[in-house]
């Protein structure tokens, strides 16, 4: 008997036991151990003090995820991901980071400088703790954020972390979470549903035109949202909102796998404009390291005459797998997709859009500019479809690829499917190369090889740059130049 008791006691002290059953009750811990199981999912949910329905929603996603297989149809190659070798939760870091700007990686500062980012912002992006007082006096982030929040509240716009919305507006979150990207949608989205860390929540009430561009910039104090970001934006009837995601500054992250989900819902006569600049670490010159960016972004034009517009500038990540899409459900609704995807080094991009025409008189427009340099591979993959009932559906797609050098590749894979005879779809595609003649012409006028390439590329992507909010466009233009550094030699 004593011996048996001893064995039981011993087992209790074993790590394996603690891992399997014990740890998740310890919500004081800042970090969950590596690996994924129901315990981890519960742990994340408990950490965020989530209601039971959401815990169950996550668990349901996790169980489905176990039955799914990782997709392999994209034109990207990477070593098999060991999902049990990843961390799925770590508390946001606050007190770490360099103390002074002088302590920051000089390479990072050089990039900031090239982008023309003001000193104040550089400090914020680099996570510097002791900020220069003089600069702070001009750009006090706290006061900016406060003014910003007050103005939004006046308009009735809700803009907060999704974890906060779960607590303060559970009815909205419960109604719309997973309404556009269902739990079962795809491998990465399902994984995100199980373990999502945090992200933005936006609700714009009926008839309200959001008084300013909503930007993650104003959520910078809530960064480290982790690799499984979840964003939900709802534009109620007749409202308008423009949302900017990301920033042009290079972003490094210790987490290699990023699987975000973004859901947009536009009700009758509402309009959502969603702009992204993605500049995650692309890996080193030999293609080592770099972020895997496996994102699911989808908008639901649920209401009649609603409109959703995606604009993206993708320059970072080792692998990009991303298809911001529109479900054109409401009659006379409209979807737009404007994209610049630049790949250099050994980057791989498989990106595009889906425009699913369900309602009558729906229209969509796709302008995609892919630029491949170095040894990179750049694929546009797009699906345009018209349902039986999508009478008079219209789409125009223009898909241009530009090659720099002779070791890269550009590919265009359009899927077009019209199930009624009144649909009219147009697809235009070109592939071109920056010619030596063109480069020489520009260099003869005084521009260096890199400046000349940037000028030509900026001309190539002009139609899309024009879709970006003004100040974003200027930064994006510089970012394009930086992304192409070393592409000509």
């Amino acid at each position, binding site marked *: 008997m004593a011996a048996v008791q001893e064995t039981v006691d011993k087992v209790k002290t074993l790590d394996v036991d603690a891992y399997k059953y014990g740890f998740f009750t310890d919500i004081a811990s800042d970090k969950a151990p590596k690996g994924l199981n129901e315990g981890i999912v519960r742990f994340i949910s408990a950490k965020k003090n989530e209601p039971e329905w959401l815990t169950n929603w996550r668990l349901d996603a996790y169980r489905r995820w176990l039955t799914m297989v990782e997709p392999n149809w994209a034109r990207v190659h990477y070593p098999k991901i060991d999902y049990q070798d990843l961390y799925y939760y770590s508390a946001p870091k606050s007190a770490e980071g360099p103390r002074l700007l002088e302590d920051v990686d000089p390479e990072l500062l050089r990039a900031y400088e090239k982008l023309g980012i003001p000193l104040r912002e550089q400090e914020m992006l680099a996570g510097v703790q002791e900020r220069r007082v003089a600069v702070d006096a001009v750009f006090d982030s706290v006061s900016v954020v406060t003014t910003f929040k007050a103005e939004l509240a006046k308009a009735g716009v809700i803009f907060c972390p999704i974890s906060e919305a779960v607590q303060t507006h559970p009815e909205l979150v419960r109604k719309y979470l997973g309404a556009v990207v269902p739990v079962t949608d795809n491998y990465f989205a399902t994984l995100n549903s199980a373990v999502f860390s945090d992200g933005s929540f936006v609700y714009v009430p009926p008839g309200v035109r959001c008084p300013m561009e909503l930007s993650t910039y104003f959520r910078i104090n809530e960064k480290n949202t982790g690799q499984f970001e979840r964003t939900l934006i709802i534009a109620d009837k007749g409202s308008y909102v423009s949302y900017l995601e990301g920033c042009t500054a290079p972003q490094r992250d210790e987490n290699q796998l990023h699987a975000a989900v973004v859901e947009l819902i536009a009700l009758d006569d509402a309009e959502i404009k969603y702009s992204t600049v993605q500049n995650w670490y692309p890996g080193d010159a030999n293609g080592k390291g770099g972020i895997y960016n496996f994102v699911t972004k989808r908008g639901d034009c649920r209401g009649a005459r609603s409109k959703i517009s995606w604009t993206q500038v993708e320059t970072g990540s080792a692998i990009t797998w991303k298809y911001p899409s529109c479900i054109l459900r409401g009659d006379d609704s409209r979807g737009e997709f404007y994209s610049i995807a630049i790949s250099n080094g050994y980057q791989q991009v498989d990106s595009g859009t889906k425009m699913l025409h369900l309602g009558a008189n729906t229209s969509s427009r796709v302008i995609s500019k892919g630029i491949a340099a170095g040894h990179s591979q750049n694929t546009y993959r797009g699906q345009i479809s018209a349902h039986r009932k999508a009478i008079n559906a219209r789409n125009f797609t223009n898909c241009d690829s530009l090659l720099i050098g002779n070791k890269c590749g550009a590919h265009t894979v359009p899927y077009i499917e019209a199930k009624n005879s009144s649909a009219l779809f147009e697809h235009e595609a070109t592939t071109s190369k920056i010619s030596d003649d063109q480069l020489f012409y*520009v260099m003869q006028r005084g521009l260096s090889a890199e400046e000349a390439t940037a000028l030509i590329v900026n001309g190539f992507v*002009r139609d899309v740059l024009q879709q970006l909010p003004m100040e974003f466009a200027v930064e994006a233009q510089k970012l394009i130049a930086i992304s192409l550094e070393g592409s000509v030699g």
Partner: protein
Amino acid sequence: MLDIQNLHVRIAGKTIIDGLNLKVDAGQVAAIMGPNGSGKSTLSYVIAGRADYEVTEGSIKLDGVDLLDKTPAERAALGIFLSFQYPLEIPGVATMTFLKAALNAQRRARDEGEMSTPDFMKKVRAAAARLNISQDMLKRAVNLGFSGGEKKRMEILQMALLEPRFAILDEMDSGLDIDALRVCSEGVNALRSPERGLLVITHYQRLLDYIAPDVVHVMSAGKIVRSGGPELALELEKSGYADYASEAA
């Protein structure tokens, strides 16, 4: 000013320029005439620094500065300008943007500081007016959809803005009707100055009626085979290039 000594140039293993000597003084307008394939365009590219040309021997100096180890942009900043026979199109880049980028890149390289936008606009407008270039054309993408004449006028506009020390006009007259030829030539003549050297490359004497050269050189099989005054051009117009046989393919 420009001093080329014993220049030998190969491309893809084939000799194109074979021991060429050429001097152009400041204030001088020199014409180079010669049959197709004699290496005239290659010479202009090599002076401007185009890659793919292998200089196996010789030197090219501008005001005593060796150009051969310099990039095209560095040469441009030193004052080399090439008016292209076939100016290139750059879709999506407004002509005005292009002109400003070029001017300021050169000014930065010379530590002169960038030109302010109002000053720049004033300068462009004045030069454009002299060349019959409309404001609308300046807003369009560089050379995109321009007629042959418009492209050449745009080359001369760039020359007027960049104020080079030494300009090469590579077959400026090709693709031009008489009226456009006159406008372009007047533009070039307005830029003649005691400090500036000009090298005019052409097949035809006709251009030299508009831009009167001080000296005429005949190029054949990669070297200068004869030099003389303006009368040499007239003589060539009559007799053709047959006397300068051994025409390279």
